[in-house]
């Protein structure tokens, strides 16, 4: 190692490598590939929440101009993967059976896709869809979480494995809470939230041959999709190609292959044409997952001087009747604070609704709303500053796993965040600070998420002009994966970023997992590192073989590019790439390298941490809340792409504003049907809702987690934001809102 010579740790802000494509409209998203002879499919959803289809009258639709097919369970071709046991392949697997579209006449949720109308144009397909008449036999449905809470149950995964994150957990003394000097107890409710990426879920399904399928599909994993559809259609994996070069946001809803994708593939097979299927915005609420409505109850016991004695935390989250969706709602309660006694009880409640799916920050963001609100409430009850209260319960090792942290730099976050938000202006007593008519409040919330890492493989090619081209199947749903990988490669090799290309988003490329769970830089980054080092090794070997003795004992870390020159650190030896390639009679060199998690994962607890601070104004008479400033502090290891990383934090904070103040998918339980199901009624934050967001990165590498030193950002960007805002609202008004969103009606 010769780090003094080659300063590789300093990553500089870089414009997005795909920026030009995105600002010119040239970036192609999944519905934007013009294939000859394209047909268009529109899905008709069920109008009841539970029951069976009695009849489908498709005559008028079939006769409508341009309609090619009206497909339902009555006439859909057999999907081999549905047979024989009825297992439907899906990864990552939820317990149960994903919905098999057009399989039978069962209705398991409202707006379940039951008919596809395929036509020669979108307009004709839409019109055709409006002509389909369906009769149902209704059964009594259950969609209301609170009303049916008594039916909540332990997840099957937890029954099988007591170590499952969803299993019951107890540490310390069982009745510690009961005997605590200060006892606090409250219930919190998070409504159903919907990912609502700006791009509607879209797929073009194209059977290039009878057993050869290409999908241009909006997903977060091209390999997952390839594998699932290969199984579903009983064809070799190499016969399935999934293209997802650009993904217009996803936030988790592309982590599952959904019924509409299979519907399009069935339709393409049936009409023998490529079929484009784009969901409507309403269908984004019912067909591609959501953050489940979750009820939580938390009990916190503490001493009067602010030491935690016990935390008991339980939650019930809704799931569908056919898949057990679970998430890690209660995990941080076990490890965030040094409470000697902790109990968690995680339950799921199957309802006649569609299956949820992880939404940004997933369960941790839900759990953090309860935990971090409760911490604020207890601090208030004992008259302590909420930051001091948290610091009094700071934990230097993971109390759940009984392991040291790989790294944890939260103290820096507390200090920096306090300074930047102006915490000194906060008054302990709520309602004391005013700006004109508006009440002013400050609040904070913390977040954590596992520094996840999975195996990933990168192929890299270096030509004699010094162009480095890499390939990997990973997707980029927006964080700037290509940009980050180019930066890692440049940082590792010294090759300037404009000579490096990172191709992603195709199942044709080397393996990578899903873009989810904040794992991309931690997983693919090391593979880029490995590939770059392998190329350097090849160059060193080539140089040494040609008699350049200085290279004989050199290691990859000693070698860096300086434009077209290869330099050896600390030594005067150098050669040029052109010479080396010429001497070896080569046009290019290449390598494929895999990188995997190592045994450090068994020795350390690896987590990224965040801390969010909010300053809000609340109007005492109209109940309006205006977030005036947010400070986000993150201990996420090495920040390899400072510019896009900052944007990712800003985006997470914006999602947190939505969670805290505006987002609510309201269902009318009489019908089991959403009533707020478009972007007019389901309010995601707009420009006017979002203040300046100040981002601070500790930016210290965690080399135990992975060789890049990164711990991941996507989730911690949102986890803890909603409680920070809710706590600030309390500080402003003295009103504690425990059911999100905090709309004006709840504050007047």
């Amino acid at each position, binding site marked *: 190692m010769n780090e003094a010579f080659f300063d590789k740790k300093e990553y500089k802000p870089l*414009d*997005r490598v795909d*920026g*030009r*494509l*995105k*600002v*010119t*409209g040239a970036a192609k*998203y999944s*519905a*934007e590939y013009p294939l000859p002879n394209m047909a*268009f499919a529109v899905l008709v959803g069920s109008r009841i929440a539970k029951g069976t289809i009695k009849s489908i*009258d*498709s*005559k*008028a*639709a079939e*006769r*409508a*101009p341009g309609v090619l097919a009206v497909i339902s369970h009555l006439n859909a071709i057999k999907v081999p993967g549905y047979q024989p046991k009825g297992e439907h392949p899906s990864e990552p697997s939820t317990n149960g059976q994903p919905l098999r579209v057009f399989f039978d006449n069962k209705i398991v949720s409202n707006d379940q896709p039951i008919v596809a109308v395929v036509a020669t*144009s*979108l*307009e004709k397909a839409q019109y055709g869809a*409006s*002509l*389909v*008449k369906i009769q149902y036999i209704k059964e009594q449905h259950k969609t209301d979480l609170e009303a049916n809470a008594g039916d909540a149950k332990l997840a099957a995964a937890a029954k099988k494995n007591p170590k499952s994150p969803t299993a019951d957990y107890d540490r310390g003394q069982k009745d510690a809470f009961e005997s605590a000097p200060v006892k606090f107890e409250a219930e919190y409710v998070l409504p159903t939230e919907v*990912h*609502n*990426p*700006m*791009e*509607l879920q879209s797929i073009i399904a194209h059977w290039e041959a009878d057993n050869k399928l290409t999908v241009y599909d909006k997903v977060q994993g091209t390999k997952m999709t390839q594998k699932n559809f290969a199984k579903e259609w009983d064809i070799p994996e190499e016969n399935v190609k999934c293209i997802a070069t*650009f993904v*217009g*946001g996803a*936030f988790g809803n592309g982590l599952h292959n959904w019924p509409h994708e299979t519907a399009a593939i069935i339709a393409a097979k049936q009409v023998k044409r490529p079929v484009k299927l*784009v969901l*409507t*915005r309403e269908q984004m609420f019912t067909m591609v997952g959501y953050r489940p409505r979750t009820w939580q109850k938390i009990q916190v016991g503490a001493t009067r001087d602010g030491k935690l004695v016990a935390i008991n935390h339980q939650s019930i989250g809704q799931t569908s009747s056919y898949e057990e969706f679970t998430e890690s709602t209660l995990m941080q309660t076990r490890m965030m604070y040094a409470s000697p006694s902790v109990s968690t009880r995680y339950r799921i409640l199957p309802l006649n609704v569609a299956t949820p799916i992880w939404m940004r920050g997933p369960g941790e963001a839900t759990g953090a709303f309860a935990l971090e609100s409760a911490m604020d409430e207890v601090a208030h009850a004992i008259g302590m500053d909420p930051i001091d209260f948290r610091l009094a319960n700071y934990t230097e090792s993971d109390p759940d796993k009984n392991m040291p942290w790989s790294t944890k730099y939260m103290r820096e976050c507390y200090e920096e965040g306090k300074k930047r938000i102006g915490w000194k202006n906060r008054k302990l007593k709520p309602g004391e600070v005013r700006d004109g008519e508006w009440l002013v409040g400050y609040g904070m919330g913390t977040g954590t998420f596992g520094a996840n890492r999975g195996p990933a493989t990168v192929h890299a090619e270096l030509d004699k002009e010094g162009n480095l081209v890499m390939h990997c199947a990973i997707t980029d749903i*927006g*964080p700037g994966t290509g940009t980050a990988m180019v930066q890692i490669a440049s940082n590792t090799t010294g090759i300037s970023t404009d000579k490096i290309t990172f191709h992603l988003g195709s199942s044709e490329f080397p393996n990578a997992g899903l873009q989810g769970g904040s794992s991309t830089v931690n997983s693919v980054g090391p593979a880029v590192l490995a590939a770059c080092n392998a190329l350097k090794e090849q160059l060193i070997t080539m140089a040494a073989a040609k008699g350049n003795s200085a290279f004989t004992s050199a290691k990859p870390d000693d070698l860096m590019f300086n434009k077209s020159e290869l330099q050896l650190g600390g030594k005067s030896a150098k050669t040029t790439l052109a010479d080396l390639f010429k001497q070896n009679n080569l046009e290019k060199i290449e390598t494929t390298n895999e990188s995997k998690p190592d045994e450090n994962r068994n020795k350390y607890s690896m987590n990224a941490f965040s801390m969010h601070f909010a300053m809000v104004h609340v109007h005492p008479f109209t109940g309006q809340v205006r977030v005036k400033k947010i400070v986000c502090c993150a201990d996420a290891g090495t920040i390899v792409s400072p510019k*896009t990383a900052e*944007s*990712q934090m*800003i*985006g997470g904070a*914006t*999602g947190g504003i939505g969670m805290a103040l505006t987002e609510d998918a309201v269902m009318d339980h009489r019908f089991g049907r959403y009533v707020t199901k*478009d*972007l*007019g009624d389901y309010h995601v934050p*707009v*420009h*006017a809702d*979002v*203040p*300046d*967001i100040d981002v601070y990165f500790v930016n210290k590498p965690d080399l135990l987690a992975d060789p890049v030193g990164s711990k991941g950002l996507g989730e911690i960007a949102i986890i803890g934001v909603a409680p920070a805002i809710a706590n600030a609202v309390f500080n402003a008004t003295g009103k504690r809102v425990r059911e999100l969103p905090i709309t004006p009606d709840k504050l007047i």
Partner: protein
Amino acid sequence: MDKNKSNKKPEKEDHQESRRDFLKASSILTAIAVAPATVAKAAEYNLGEKISAAFETTPVNLTINGVKKQLPVEPRSTLLDVLREQLDLTGTKKGCDYGQCGACTVHVNGQRVLSCLSLAVMQEGKEVTTIEGLAKGDELHPMQKAFIKHDGFQCGYCTPGQIMSGIACINEGHANSKEDIKEFMSGNICRCGAYPNIVKAIQEVKNGGQKS
């Protein structure tokens, strides 16, 4: 409005109408099989659609990104669907299709409008500018450059709409302060949450004197 044009039009429409009336009268009543009642009622009046399908497009003359085009469109086709599905100008995005997100923002005669709520047939004689029409060759529009510089996007899907809207926001005189920009850009939703960076990009272009 061009007087000559509006004088000519009705005649043409009259022709079309009588043709439709004829088709209506000569077609056979088909079975009703319609989900929503409103559509059922409409369908009764909409007899013989199959027969008349071939006649159902109307030519519309548009200038798109400086290029004059005559396109056959169904009256029900939106400008958005015509751009994306007929002309392969997919830079204009469909985010909601109901006028609730701004992803489909284009300029029609220099004004920012939502192409998802604009019927293509109603744009007769108008000039449409889409995101693809902003750059002059390789030279990006200052707003495009500013978006890259300030990282005014992540996934990029709302970006064309934000850029088209941002340019118009300045031209309308609604970019005089940060608060002003935020209010007058609120019709463009960004779920990735790039808002503060978008505002910075617009401010920079505004302060640099926009030439569009």
